[in-house]
């Protein structure tokens, strides 16, 4: 496979194991992610994707194996890891009672940034939330919530961003917005590890794709390499979905940045 000898990997995972009581979720997971790459972890529900993300973001301790993020060992330097990363979980981790701007200011202050208000205003503009800034998040739409969630995660410009199923439950427009956000991140040199159960998402976004199945990485490579492993029937199915989506987008209008609450 590709050699990543020159820059040290942004994420390095070796022989990672994790069990919940008798249930063995991870059975020796290995992979590396190069700096600035978009790496997609593909797998069905229960394959262990979220477990990997939770371990790499210091929320969960692995039973065995080693992992480094941004060069810091997870078990010995968790604080440095937390300085380097941000996590966006499957469900928007936003404060419903606060306004959008207050949510951003809160995170900026917890990251000890010098000018939290300016950071918040900048992100509100970047994520198209300026008009909704003074409204409470409880009145936000799903797509707005997700954008705020990501905006909160990007405060402090973390080097490595974990996105756990970032588009699950989003409508096609919000999903396209999310894809653009991920591409912009990678263009700025941020390393992105995202999990998904949608083949299409990995296909459209990722530089490299790893397939997680029954606690092991059973395939790891570029799209072209991975595609050979997928049965053609499944490919047809995915393309059918995409065409319905095209119709949907054509009917409702493809202005993907406009959001109504």
């Amino acid at each position, binding site marked *: 496979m590709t050699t990543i000898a020159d820059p040290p990997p942004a994420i390095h995972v070796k022989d990672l194991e994790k069990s919940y009581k008798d249930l063995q979720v991870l059975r020796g997971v290995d992979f590396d992610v190069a700096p600035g790459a978009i790496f997609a972890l593909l797998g069905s529900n229960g394959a262990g994707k979220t477990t990997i993300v939770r371990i790499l973001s210091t*929320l969960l301790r692995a039973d065995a194996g080693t992992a480094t993020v941004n060069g810091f060992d997870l078990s010995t330097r968790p604080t440095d890891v*937390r300085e380097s990363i941000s996590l966006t979980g499957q*469900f928007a*981790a936003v*404060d419903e*009672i606060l306004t959008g701007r207050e949510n951003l200011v*809160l*995170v900026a202050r*917890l990251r000890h940034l010098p000018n939290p208000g300016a950071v918040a205003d900048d992100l509100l503009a970047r994520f198209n939330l300026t008009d909704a800034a003074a409204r*409470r998040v409880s009145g936000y739409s799903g797509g707005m919530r997700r954008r705020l969630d990501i905006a909160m995660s990007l405060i402090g410009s973390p080097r490595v961003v974990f996105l756990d199923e970032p588009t699950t439950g989003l409508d096609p427009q919000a999903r396209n917005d999310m894809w653009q956000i991920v591409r912009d991140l990678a263009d700025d040199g941020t390393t992105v590890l995202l999990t998904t159960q949608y083949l299409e998402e990995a296909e459209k976004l990722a530089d490299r794709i790893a397939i997680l199945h029954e606690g092991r990485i059973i395939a790891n490579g570029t799209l072209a390499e991975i595609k050979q492993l997928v049965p053609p029937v499944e490919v047809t199915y995915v393309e059918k979905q995409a065409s319905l989506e095209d119709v949907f987008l054509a009917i409702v209008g493809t202005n993907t940045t406009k959001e109504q609450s």
Partner: protein
Amino acid sequence: MTAHVLADTSVLVGRSMRHITRSMDTIITVTITPIAMMLMFVYVLGGAIQAGAGRYVDYLLPGILLITIASGIAYTAVRLFNDMTSGIFERFHSMPIARSSVLWAHVLTSLVSNGLSVAIVVLVALVMGFRSPAGLLAWLAVAGILALVTLALTWLAVLAALAAKTAEGATAFSYPLIFLPFISSAFVPTDTMPGPVRAFAENQPVTSIVNTIRALLAGEPVSGDIWIALAWCVGILAVAYVLSMVAYRRRIAS
């Protein structure tokens, strides 16, 4: 990292205080039941209750304040439980902030919001004719004891929230606490109660706490009750704190 503990905690307290100021209905819900009880006991039942020579509202207020705190901490449990289930806890935990500040922010917020509720109930009592000859020092002692009670019960609430599976489960622990003052010296003197009930009433924490606060507010010397009251509070605080920490570690490390 520890240098940031205070800064992080104050940011997070600011956050949860906003939750309280934006839903003042929780303060109203917390104070309305004790106020209604106070009105009923003073104006309906009070005439028939023989509780010494003074005004009955003076006699009853300490117990009412404990009921106020007991219903207030149920909301502390709910706020903490909602944070844990909403994903915002995980966001905080994956950030470079002192993890202890996440819990302490809820505890400090509980102290402030319960202080607010207690102040409202005392104001209503003043309108109903409550008067106290107590000096500044005695009032400070009352405030200190109530703060200690709040702190002890708050850690009990933290434990309940960490152990609960549902929001209802997180608040259920507070019902017996609200009921406990009724089997104590809070509403009637214990010497009118039959043997076993009296034995329970005189040896449970509420009686010693109520007696101490009542003596302080009446400007009378406090008896040995104050030491029993303090021992109960510190004991409950210590046990609840240790168990909460165990539950917390288990919850974040699994």
